């Protein structure tokens, strides 16, 4: 039996709506489940005590919060200058020849390499070869390598989106190349670059695999970056795998989702502002 075109169309529309509802339902299931079971644990005591660690699952998340802040700050401190510099280099100085094409290809490929492969590299180089042993710094160095390709690509795209006329105008007024980049190109590309940084923050907060093999995962409060530590995501993983404290794991999940929602909101706000700005100027 052949269905008539209008009937087929009705069925197809139904399938489209169903697929969209599935996506929303999946999101809502995750968020409602995590919040419903996890939010009750969250309180001052949960935020202000260290986890006990090991198989117990008791305690709060204070040292994991500190670990997360350490990781985010250190990763950015290393990856942001290098990545933005490399992005400026590729967009403004490098030109287009066989070498830069290979470089772009390497960057593009590394952006898709699984984080655990970066973890292998980081473990072998930072933890073993450079003898840092398991510590926050080794984790941050590994994570910096992981977010570097994304920062480079996003920066390069943001700079390339600045209209050529801006540069020509500035050069025609007698500015040097660097003055043009510093005072004309970078300000125009800034929202795009800031977006790159915020994406990197988000990645650092949610990343687990490459930190699992480099940070050590101690539950104790880290004092210096050379201490063994854990992030919130790692803490969640240890709770889920080694203990029965699922409510605490879910409460940690609540914290992670809140952080990600805030980061998403900032990115959306910035990129909408950027759109307005670019449209206003072109």
């Amino acid at each position, binding site marked *: 039996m052949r269905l008539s075109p209008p009937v087929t169309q009705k069925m197809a529309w139904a399938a489209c*709506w169903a697929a969209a509802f599935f996506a929303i339902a999946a999101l809502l299931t995750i968020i409602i489940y995590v919040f419903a079971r996890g939010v009750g644990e969250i309180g001052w005591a949960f935020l202000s005590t260290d986890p006990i660690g090991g198989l117990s699952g008791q305690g709060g998340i204070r040292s994991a919060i500190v670990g997360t802040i350490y990781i985010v700050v250190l990763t950015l401190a290393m990856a942001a200058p290098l*990545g933005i*510099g*490399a992005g400026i280099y590729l967009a403004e100085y490098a030109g287009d020849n066989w070498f830069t094409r290979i470089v772009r290809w390497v960057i593009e490929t590394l952006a898709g390499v699984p984080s*655990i492969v970066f973890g292998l590299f980081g*473990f072998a180089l930072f933890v073993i070869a450079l003898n840092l042993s398991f510590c926050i710094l080794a984790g941050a160095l590994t994570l910096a*390598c992981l977010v570097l390709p994304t920062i480079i690509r996003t920066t390069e795209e943001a700079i390339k989106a600045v209209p050529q006329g801006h540069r020509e105008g500035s050069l025609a007024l007698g500015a040097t190349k660097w003055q043009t980049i510093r005072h004309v190109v970078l300000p125009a590309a800034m929202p795009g670059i800031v977006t790159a940084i915020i994406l990197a923050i988000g990645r650092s907060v949610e990343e687990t695999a490459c930190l699992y093999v480099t940070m050590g995962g101690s539950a104790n409060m880290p004092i210096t970056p050379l201490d063994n530590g854990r992030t919130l995501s790692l803490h969640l993983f240890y709770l889920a795998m080694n203990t029965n404290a699922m409510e605490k794991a879910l409460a940690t999940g609540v914290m992670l989702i809140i952080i990600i929602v805030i980061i998403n909101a900032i990115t959306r706000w910035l990129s909408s502002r950027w759109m307005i700005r670019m449209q206003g100027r072109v």
Partner: protein
Amino acid sequence: MIKIRNMRQFSDSAWKQVILVCGASSIVILLLIIIFTLREGLPAFTEIGFFKFISGTTWKVANDDYGILSFIVGSIYVTALALVMSVPLGVFCAIFLAEVAPNWMRQIVRPAVELLVGIPSVVYGLVGLLLLVPQISKLGGSGDSILAAAIVLTVMVLPTIISVSEDSIRSVPRVYKEGSLALGATQWQTIWHVMLPAARSGILAAVVLGMGRAIGETMAMIMVIGNSIKIPVSPLDPARTMTGSLALEINYATGLHWNALFACGVVLLIFILALNSIAMVLRGRTQQ
């Protein structure tokens, strides 16, 4: 005046050097990662033999006997099952967003999909562990299984498939659509017979990118897949992925075990490299 100009020139070239150093060191770091992984993995290939390594079914650290076939099968099994579910869902969702959805619905679905990208993989793993695994154990087995992992992955790769497919459906020239509608085709006939074939390369690229994301996922897989070394047969069997083996074993590996894990990393790199190249070619074709 001359002095000022020299200062300007000095600062110009100094900053150029700084930028150059940043650019060069990033590139060196990135190349180092690839070279390092290859260097540490090669001894396993020469000592065990490349073919024997990827086709060996036993992984026994005590006997120094390393074959990663069960990990490869685990990774591919989970990825394939996840794609079977996420590709139809993702493509229909993309059609919905590009062509069907009323504006208000689009404004709900888009942010929802964006949020799905941001949720940390350990949260997916945790929800899978607490919600899916007990349900799946009712079907037989322990519940830690390929099926649980595939369902978790389905949701995780959905955003990639949706956004890349939607872009490619949107980039189909308007005239195709108008021509088809003018010939009296219904809206759906136009989408199905004209727009989807025109967007084919882009949709395939979306699938390939989703595949890359699925093969690379680590922590969520460890949490729900059971991590057994046997080759899985039924979707209810536990298994292990390549990524999972790396994460679980690298910290205590020495000698040949160490090299074998890096070699497994190399195999993973080859997979990703192949998938990325395919996606690049496909996307290039769409742009033409």
